[in-house]
């Protein structure tokens, strides 16, 4: 009975307009959860039946959960044991050869896939500026990477932050990423956004951890910037990363996350309280907003705060 179907379709389409206001997300979610009383449910259903936009929303809200891919355990065939034993032997021999000390305090945890090959510029370390801040040092292996077309080596010396007091074994070298896009200016603009078009992307994941991606967001790795930190705000300005969160924790990296400094935001006896809710970077000024309603500003990259 195709003709009858067409009559219905045409008539429904011609009448597809509703003069009633759209239900708010509260009502729509309550409708999807069968939580509305009969009369209210009928009123919402009437609007939705006349409103293609709300039907689309309801359909999205009712969509099935997508299973999130988890690492699979692989059952290896028995003959691989011999290969593993041989590889272990080779590794022992390799490890017995003396070599330079590797960087310690590795803080990057590969999550989904190893990062692509690293192309970095080795630049002489500048002397750190006199420090006036209380900082707690964390260092990491300079793993961050991008393919050559994502990151360019810059022959100029790396901009060393006045906050950084490099005391880690990795201090004798540093790499630099060249930002190729306008800096992100605030949390809302930067969370989950691209720091540079096809380059490094930063985010905060569902577990309040800092995340970094070198492949346009396909795979992410955790970046451990501070022990026990629950991050809520992030700002990215090229290789400069600031992150803040619960308990007023505020960390900074001037080298795309290879090294982190913890910054204590204080002005004399007064120090920041609450969680850092947003970080704004603008023309050398750092602005923080906290969950307790405080505003903190630094005009010198975080050395002094008001």
């Amino acid at each position, binding site marked *: 009975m195709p*003709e009858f179907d067409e009559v219905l379709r*045409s008539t429904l389409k011609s009448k597809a307009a509703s003069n009633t206001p759209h239900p708010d*997300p509260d009502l729509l979610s309550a409708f999807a*959860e069968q939580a509305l009383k009969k009369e209210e449910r009928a009123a919402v259903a009437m609007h939705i039946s006349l409103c293609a936009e709300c*039907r*689309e929303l309801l*359909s999205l809200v009712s969509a099935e959960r997508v299973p999130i891919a988890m690492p699979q355990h692989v059952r290896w065939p028995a003959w691989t044991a011999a290969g593993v034993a041989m590889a272990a032997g080779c590794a022992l021999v390799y490890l017995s050869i003396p070599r330079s000390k590797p960087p310690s305090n590795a803080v990057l945890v590969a999550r989904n896939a190893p990062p692509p090959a690293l192309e970095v510029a080795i630049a002489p370390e500048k002397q750190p500026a006199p420090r006036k801040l209380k900082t707690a040092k964390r260092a990491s292996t300079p793993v961050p990477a991008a393919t050559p077309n994502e990151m360019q080596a810059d022959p100029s010396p790396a901009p060393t932050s006045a906050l950084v007091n490099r005391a880690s074994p990795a201090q004798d070298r540093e790499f630099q990423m060249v930002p190729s896009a306008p800096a992100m200016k*605030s949390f809302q603009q930067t969370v989950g956004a691209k720091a540079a078009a096809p380059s490094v992307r930063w985010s905060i994941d569902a577990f309040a951890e800092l995340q970094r991606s070198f492949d346009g967001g396909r795979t992410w790795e955790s970046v451990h910037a501070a022990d026990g930190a629950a991050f809520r705000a992030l700002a990215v300005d090229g290789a400069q990363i600031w992150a803040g969160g619960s308990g007023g924790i505020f960390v900074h990296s001037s080298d795309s996350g290879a090294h982190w400094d913890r910054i204590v935001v204080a002005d004399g006896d007064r120090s920041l309280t609450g969680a850092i*809710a947003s970080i704004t970077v603008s023309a050398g000024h750092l602005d923080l907003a906290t969950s307790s309603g405080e505003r903190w500003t630094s005009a010198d990259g975080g050395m002094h705060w008001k």
Partner: protein
Amino acid sequence: MMMVGAVDMPDRFPHCFADLYRKSGAQKFGLAFEEFAAILESLRARYLPADPKEFFQNLRVEDLALARSCARASDTAWNVFVERFRPKLYPLALSIARDETIARELADCLYADLFGGGRVSRLESYGGRGSLEGWLKTVLAQQYVDRLRTGRNLVSFDEQVEAGVQFAGRSEEPALMDARLEPATDAALAALPAEDRLILASYYLDRRTLAEIARMLGVHESTVSRRLDKITASVRKAILKGLRERGVNAREAEQLLHSDVRELNLDVAARLTQESISQPFYRKGPLR
């Protein structure tokens, strides 16, 4: 004065507010009874329920207290929210966007909106009618639709030219052969219960599957199938009856329902005007 724990509650509020306040756990987030009562009063003013007591009893007060306390920057509330709901944002976004990158961005953007960062948190608009998780998913869906629309607006004219958009002919609906068929069909559809009409619109207009419609309505697919058959049969019967009432004999009426509807000519401009009468609520600014 009523007493809830060590808190005094003014008598001017309904007695059920005290029970709801206890049940909500608002006190542990530092949300005072007067603030909580004011929230409940604002919800009553927003929804104007016929039976306020039943309305209040059906509110998700635990979620409501949590959301509104987060909006008021309670660290205790935020810790609970981060533990209970933040891990759900990405899976919820993924169920909507079906793309990991977009889902991550949706989840992150929503979290930023929820936190506020100096502005009014979006959690301030949560009213507790459904679960907080369901509300978060609905807001994510809105953001996703907005994102799609923005993306479409950003399609360059060159791309449109390549796609042949400028040469697209005016789409016109075919006219019904008999002018009496349209009012008869209108009347038949208007008499339908709202949910039946929703099923018809989803099936015939949106071309959704029975499974999708079932999920929208929270029923089994077979129920939708049965209801669709029943609705279609009853609408057909009502149209035939309407045609007979308009002077069409039974045989002609049957023929009309089998006529070539490609000749149906509807005023496309008028229909578009009708469709734009109500602005989407997510385009109206702050959520109610």
